[in-house]
């Protein structure tokens, strides 16, 4: 078991194809990050996030033979989680919201998106910016979360969302622009 823990993701994938127990190690490695990613994208309770995460793991397990080892396993797993979240919201016909972020996650997102230092912002101001971020379309919200909360590199975001690098860069820039526009519309001046 200790030996299996030392295996790389790609080696664990090969092992999991033959033995489901090995898949447990992969789940152990990624359950935390995927749980938080799903929580950040949705407004679900922890139990519901866990249900969704289980669906993601089952999907990953069923698709193990489709995994391309040229890709980072984490990017591939995030991609499946992203698709599963989209499917989930399609099923329940509602738009995801991002008010499930923790305070430290909001700080990261706001600081990176509008270059607002935490110590310069008052609580009221931060609340208003949060409300603006919640109003952003899903495509901008998700990419800002991936970049500034998950701290993913452009290459990883490309692989997760299956979008060209230029499109990723454009979406990030437009997301920031949209946020600033919304702040201006609501006369939020925190600088």
């Amino acid at each position, binding site marked *: 078991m200790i030996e299996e823990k030392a295996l790389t993701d790609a080696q664990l994938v090969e092992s*999991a*194809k033959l033995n*489901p*127990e090995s*898949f*447990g190690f992969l*789940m*152990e490695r990624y*359950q*935390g990050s995927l*749980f938080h990613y799903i929580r950040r994208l949705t407004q679900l309770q922890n139990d519901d996030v*866990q249900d969704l*995460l*289980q669906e993601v*793991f*089952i999907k990953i*397990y*069923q*698709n*193990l*033979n*489709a995994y*391309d080892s040229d890709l980072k396993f984490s990017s591939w797993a995030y991609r499946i989680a992203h698709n599963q979240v989209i499917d989930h919201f399609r099923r329940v016909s509602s738009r995801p919201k991002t008010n499930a972020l923790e305070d430290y996650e909001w700080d990261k997102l706001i600081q990176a998106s509008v270059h607002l230092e935490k110590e310069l912002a008052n609580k009221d101001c931060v609340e208003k910016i949060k409300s603006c971020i919640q109003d952003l379309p899903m495509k901008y919200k998700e990419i800002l979360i991936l970049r500034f909360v998950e701290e993913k590199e452009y290459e990883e975001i*490309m692989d997760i969302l*299956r*979008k*060209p690098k*230029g499109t990723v860069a454009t979406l990030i820039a437009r997301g920031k622009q949209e946020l600033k526009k919304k702040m201006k519309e609501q006369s939020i001046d925190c600088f």
Partner: protein
Amino acid sequence: MKNLIQDTLNKIKQEHIAPEPRWKFLSRKIGIWIGIIAVVALGALVISVVYFLLAQLDWDVYPLMHQNIFTYGLSVMPYFWLAFLAVLALLAFLAVRKTENGYRFNWLLIVFSIAIGILAIGFFISRVGWGGRFNGMMMHQMPYYAQNVATKEKQWMQPEAGFLAGTIHTVSGSTLEIDDLNNSTWNVQLTKQTLIRPSVTLAQGQMIKIIGTRKDAQNFVASEIRPWVGQGMMGSGQGRGMMNNFIRN
């Protein structure tokens, strides 16, 4: 959290969930690429038809139609095929983007590769004559298509505009009797000024194109005669100076 891992493993075992076989993913990938190749091949067939339609026309007659090269070009463009080609190219582009790693390719590289693919296969299809054959098939099967596409036949069956084409029935002195493409009979008068292209053979059964003036429903005065295929220049380097003046009494 620990429960989630165990619960998931239990579910996998109890419900006998297994990784889907590799061949399934592989066949899906191969299927998509076969689809892309089929779309590119169809685009190649379309471009060979476009080439066939444009190459069969005589591009030096636009001054006689009181047009410049630009307006003439616009009037004979096969828009239906060009629009279809654009749709196919877009479809191929989007399909490549949707492949497993398609999002990683530079869009210019995809566009360039599709263009090269269409042109290369299109060149081959043109060489074996499938473009012309496909166009012929469309002309027979789809009357609406036949009415709306600019063809060599249409270009040369405008006697009122000075263009006539047909098969020589008899040659008598300076007069040719021809059956035009609609099977009407014409008497074509040749004069001392009539220019006959070098490769034209004025004999029964030969198909020719005539530039001139329509006198009435059956009479036409020729100012130039060309063979049905090509412009009758007999190879490169031979210009108007090489042409014969057909002079008969």
